[in-house]
């Protein structure tokens, strides 16, 4: 009997210890916000603040989870600076490779999919729920830098993540927005769940098509730039360019793996303490460039597009028409459009047919890109 008591108490103590350790390992969620549609997060999440995000979000049918405003604080003493007016997945275009003209799906605008309600499993140990559909997480993101010359020789970064899932029929799309302590922002689209019932083994592409309205310190005075790298043929040197995007007018650009192509938005007025104009770079992360050649699929022929802001221009499949106006994209209010694609070749791990029914879920694959600040700080506030 006594042994039983000891074992029981030990078990209770162990469970309590594990629960306590998990809770205390979680970064701290900063409280506050004007409503559930607003989130603030300071970094580091524990201890004196160095930087902070204030993020506003919304959910709509045919859009899913999207950002309706994001402001960043570079230091506790400075006011909030606007970074985003709006950020969203504008469309998800899914053409199948069998040539069937009826299997070229526009998964956002063609359907009225609902969002999935958050479950305790979505939240994990450290997540919190915003309304019915959105998960808020604050994550340890590993070393932000490592330097054996200083002590401590490492700084672990953190990030605020907002994510929600759209139930797109047989598929689930996870939309994630990641706001990091260093001012960078990650945009991710995850595709998972069940293969198309009518063509479960047909390879297809999930094209994530984003519209990002970057407004640095407000919406006027922004210039779109194209960045590229060029090795000198038969030489040891290389050149790196940062030019007005498409000569300074609306247009498109292809991602070239040899040129490390990026686009950027630079504010022409606001400078950092070292007299450099503040800027955000759009950094692609991609396995390839998706090109589709059906009628009305011109929007897939390039990887970047830049337009001047127009409130009614929200639809990626029409972006090739938007740029025909050839409006200037220097020292004005610009919008970035970017495609990042998931090439889904079905595999046995996706599932199988059992008695006429599909059983199995394709494991999630993510596509996306990052927005990273350039000359935004005087120097990083996290070193040492």
């Amino acid at each position: 009997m006594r042994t039983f008591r000891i074992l029981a108490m030990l078990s209770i103590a162990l469970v309590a210890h594990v629960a306590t350790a998990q809770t205390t390992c979680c970064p701290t969620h900063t409280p506050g916000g004007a409503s559930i549609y607003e989130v603030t997060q300071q970094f580091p999440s524990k201890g004196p603040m160095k930087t902070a995000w204030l993020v506003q979000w919304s959910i709509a049918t045919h859009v899913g989870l999207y950002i309706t405003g994001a402001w960043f604080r570079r230091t506790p003493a400075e006011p909030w600076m606007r970074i985003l007016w709006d950020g969203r997945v504008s469309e998800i275009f899914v053409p199948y490779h069998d040539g069937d003209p009826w299997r070229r799906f526009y998964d956002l605008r063609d359907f009225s999919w609902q969002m999935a309600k958050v479950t305790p499993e979505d939240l994990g140990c450290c997540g919190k729920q915003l309304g019915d559909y959105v998960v808020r997480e604050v994550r340890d993101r590993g070393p932000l830098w490592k330097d054996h010359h200083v002590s401590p020789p490492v700084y672990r970064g953190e990030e605020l993540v907002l994510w929600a899932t759209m139930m797109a029929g047989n598929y689930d799309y996870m939309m994630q927005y990641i706001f990091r302590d260093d001012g960078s922002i990650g945009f991710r689209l995850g595709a998972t769940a069940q293969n198309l019932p009518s063509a479960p083994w047909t390879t297809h592409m999930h094209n994530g098509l984003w519209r990002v309205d970057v407004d640095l310190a407000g919406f006027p005075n922004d210039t779109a730039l194209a960045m590229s790298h060029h090795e000198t043929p038969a030489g040891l040197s290389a050149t790196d360019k940062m030019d007005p995007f498409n000569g300074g007018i609306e247009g498109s650009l292809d991602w070239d793996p040899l040129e490390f192509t990026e686009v950027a938005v630079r504010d022409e007025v606001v400078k950092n303490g070292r007299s450099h104009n503040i800027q955000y770079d759009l950094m692609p992360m991609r396995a390839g460039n998706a090109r589709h050649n059906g009628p009305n699929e011109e929007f897939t022929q390039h990887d970047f597009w830049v337009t001047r802001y127009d409130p009614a221009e929200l639809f990626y499949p029409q972006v090739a028409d938007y740029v025909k106006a050839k409006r200037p994209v220097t020292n004005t209010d610009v919008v970035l459009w970017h495609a990042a694609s998931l090439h889904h070749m079905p595999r046995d791990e996706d599932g199988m047919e059992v008695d006429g029914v599909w059983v199995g879920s394709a494991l999630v694959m993510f596509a996306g890109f990052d927005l990273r600040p350039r000359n935004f700080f005087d120097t990083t506030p996290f070193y040492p």
Partner: protein
Amino acid sequence: MQRTFGACLVILMLACATTYDGARPVAAPMYAAGLDRATSEGGQIPAPPMPLSDAETRQAASAALTELRRRDPALAAGRIFFVHAEMLNDKAAGRRALVQHYRYEGDVTFTSIVDLAANQVVDVRSAAHVPTPLSPEEVSAAQTRALQEAPVRSLTSQYGQVTLEPRAIRSTSPDDPLFGHRAIEFFFLTPRGYLVNTPRVIVDLTADRVLIQERPPSAPPHM
């Protein structure tokens, strides 16, 4: 009993000492969220825009349709459906809605911007052959139509509880009989999962007909 409890406490403290890092003292946060909303532009961070309410959606849809008919009675004539409205995250002052209507004739989508406070349409644009949501009425009509077909009735009687899940079809080829049509393919969802190898059932709402294609058994091409 007390000795047992004491022993457990010692074991717990020893275990915590090895892995528990939450006991480290931390300074109180210097920043309390919500107290300060000043921006570098000189103003204050506005309250987050709220999604459209049902009443706002109805108002915006009605205002947009009225304006379409006013601008061009012929343009807005025919089979026209309200398909979507969302809060417009616009930079203009005031609360605005983006509204979409779809007209069967010409496969045209109208996009309107409605100033909700003024109940006024401030912008209307149209585009043909672009992705446009299905209205609930269209989906419902297509489901009813599909359920009248023998292959669909056969599936529902064979599997019992079968949900007809709609997938809009947007044919991209001008040579295709479904090009420019409002068409829906249905998948069949049972409590055990999606049925595979079923006939392909497509309701063409524009032509008011149902296409049934027998499907050959699919063979997984292992790559």
